């Protein structure tokens, strides 16, 4: 008797469970932690996508873009990720080589990126230029160019990120390579006395800068917008450099193993929609990849507009990163 009731209950529960699972498919999206965090755009993106997809969006997070890629590689083809948001250009070739990503099939015309986009695996969802951020109430005359910063022996003290552990750190290394090429060794040696330290990640470096340990910190042209919008502080500025600025582009992609490829594709379309894009500026403090100038928040319109865009292709980064890092090590390790 009891056995039968238990069985009936169990099958009822099972049926109910299946039914609920059938009505709401789950889209699993991997991202980095600050994207899905309290102040990140993750919550807004989830709500807005769920409003149109009749599904549930589940964020799974890793520390940063690098960990994201490491996790995908560990999981291989049995990854639970249907889509990934948060890789960047410098990791794109490595990510492609994992052979996990499917063509996104999204029309990428009309992007507001400083460069043309034709990749069929990844969609850019936001971007920013790397830039040195400084406190204009303390540093009245910031350098006007990278060369001025590097070659002026009495220039400002700066804090950088280690290119081996950090995305902006690697970005600045590439910037130096773009400007100095074979002369990068000497440039690093010239700059070395004014580098306060190389930190593990962006957070440590920015913290050091806010504590006053350095006059300038490697960050993004969009960083001052945070201070203006949230803290109502106007003294933080990004220094515009004559030679141009290195570009940082963040990417999204869908996996070959997505359980529901249609849903994943729908999400890829959604990434370039207004609903997603309008969450980027004040959620991720980056420029949206597709936005009308009118929809951009006021503080972002003040961001400096570099005269030239510096960028290595993902394949160039993949081929040369080791050599660049070794050169940097030899020039700065003492």
């Amino acid at each position, binding site marked *: 008797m009891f056995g039968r009731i238990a069985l009936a209950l169990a099958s009822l529960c099972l049926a109910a469970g299946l039914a609920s699972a059938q009505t709401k498919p789950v889209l699993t999206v991997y991202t980095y932690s*600050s994207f899905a965090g309290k102040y990140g755009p993750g919550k807004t993106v989830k709500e807005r996508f769920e409003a149109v997809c009749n599904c549930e969006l589940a*964020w799974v997070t890793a520390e940063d873009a690098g960990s994201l*890629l490491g996790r995908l590689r560990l999981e291989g083809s049995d990854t639970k990720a249907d889509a990934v948001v948060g890789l960047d250009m410098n990791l794109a070739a490595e990510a492609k080589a994992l052979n996990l990503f499917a063509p996104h099939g999204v029309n990428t015309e009309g992007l507001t990126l400083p460069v043309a986009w034709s990749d069929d695996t990844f969609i850019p969802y936001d971007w920013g230029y790397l830039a040195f951020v400084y406190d204009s109430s303390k540093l009245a005359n910031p350098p006007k160019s990278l060369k001025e910063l590097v070659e002026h022996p009495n220039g400002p003290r700066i804090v950088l990120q280690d290119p*081996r552990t950090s995305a902006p750190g690697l970005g600045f290394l590439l910037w130096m390579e773009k400007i100095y090429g074979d002369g990068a060794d000497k440039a690093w040696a010239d700059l070395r006395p004014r580098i306060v330290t*190389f930190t*593990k990640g962006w957070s440590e470096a*920015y913290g050091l800068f806010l504590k*006053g340990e350095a006059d300038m910190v490697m960050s993004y042209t969009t960083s001052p917008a945070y201070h203006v919008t949230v803290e109502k502080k106007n003294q933080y500025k990004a220094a515009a450099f004559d030679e141009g600025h290195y570009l940082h582009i963040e990417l999204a992609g869908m996996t070959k193993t997505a359980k529901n490829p249609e849903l994943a594709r729908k999400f890829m379309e959604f990434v370039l929609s207004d609903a997603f894009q309008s969450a980027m500026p004040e959620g991720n403090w980056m420029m949206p990849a597709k936005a009308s100038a009118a929809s951009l928040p006021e503080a972002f319109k003040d961001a400096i507009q570099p005269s030239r865009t510096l960028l290595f292709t993902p394949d160039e980064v993949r081929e040369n990163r080791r050599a660049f890092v070794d050169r940097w090590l030899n020039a700065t390790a*003492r």
Partner: protein
Amino acid sequence: MTLRPPHPGSLVALAILALVAGGFFALLRAGGSGSGIFSIGPYLVQVLIFSLVQATLSTILSLGLGTALALALARRRFPGRDTLLAFLGTTMVIPTIVAVFAVLTVYGRNGWAARLLADSGAGPIGIFGYPGILIAHVFLNAPFVARVALDALDTVPAEQWRLASALGFTPRQIFRHLDWPALRTVLPGLASLVFLLCFKSFAVVLALGGGPGRATLEVAIYEALKVDLDFARAASLSLVQVAICLAVASLLQKPLAYRPAAATVRGAPVRSDARDRRLKAFDSAVLILGFGFIGPLALSVLTGLGHLGAVMDADLFQALATSLAIASAAAALACCLALLLGAAARHRRFVLGSPRGASLFELIPNLLLAVPPFALTAGLFAIVRPLADPALAGAVLLPLINGLGSLPFVYRSVAPRLMLAEERYGRLSASLGLAGASRLRIVDWPLLRQPLGAAFALAMALSFGDFGIIALFGGPELRTLPYLLYERLGAYRFDEASAIGLIVVLVAFLLARLSGRLPYARD
């Protein structure tokens, strides 16, 4: 000779070794472009030399200050001493980023010390490089050394104190015959512990080192894992690190010190040397110096105070609950493993008469310290991954890896007491036929209770402050306090992050205070 079932501690030891080896093989199998470890070339040599030098200096300074503090605290009674003791157990678990910012708040360009120096007319101090690294390492480790050394000093039996006072021992004789033998039981273990921690210290060295010349092997491992995705290289670099760490740790532990103790009665000791005038001056100087160094750094954690209100929300309480749950599971695991390992080591040393065999068991906690947590986590993750979904894998692996991570600390406080119990009562309990659970209850428990409680709290605090491993598993469903801290940092909210850092430290302090209030062992 009949075949007897192996000691449960031996099984635990085997299981741990299998787990670590399994992690390495999984990493090697996950592979990579297969570049050899020597392709790093001279840089690797430079990194190794720097790591060895800074770890040696950090160890000497931490042990020196810690031991001096312990002796001063053993001789002196003053108001607030209990709070101080609780505080000593706390610094070690401060999240590294909080510790780094603390060092800068005090010794940085705009820090207190810099302002004091500027007022007195001296030039600015350069904190980046050796000074910063050593200050941070001593700040994190010396208080812990003091706490454990003080515990050891407390084990000297009251008879010996009475005898010493009857014989009119001079302070020098007291140190030589009573304090030193007690310290000698814990100092080699502490030395290897601190050395290993500093050898692979990573975020502190990067942030305060100033340049890539001051990096540890852990950076190369991290780079291989995260940027090159060359897991095979990460695994082989990890092997290099483990080999070096184990070699150094076994060198430090060579004089496997334990002192024969015959006495059986213990009470609050009356230290005759507390009256010595020169020692009084010396102790005061040590205490002022020690807390003049540690105090401001600890106080700077309070910068988060003003922002506590901003972070009090449902997320925070959920993260706190998650952190506590993971931390207690990890601490329980660490205590069980430490007891079993310690029992096995004791069995080897006293029953089988093989100190060499015993020291093999004692190497296992050091092995766990030497293994880079990222590499081990990645390896275990690769094993568990096909069997469980990410959230479940995290829920299982987090307490496991955190438990293994704090085992060395728990072992350090539990094992000496197990040995002590055997020395004091081993023959007696053998002659009485005491064995198994009743022996544990009557003989071991009274001596173990207090250090085990303290170790449990410490293990909890350690796992509570851990970020390295949560970085791999964390997510909306598994969010701990350190995870929240980094999330806020990533969103420019440095003030809120400092408030969360303060909460982490406060909880650690409460745990340490709790452990200090556990009833002291009376024989």
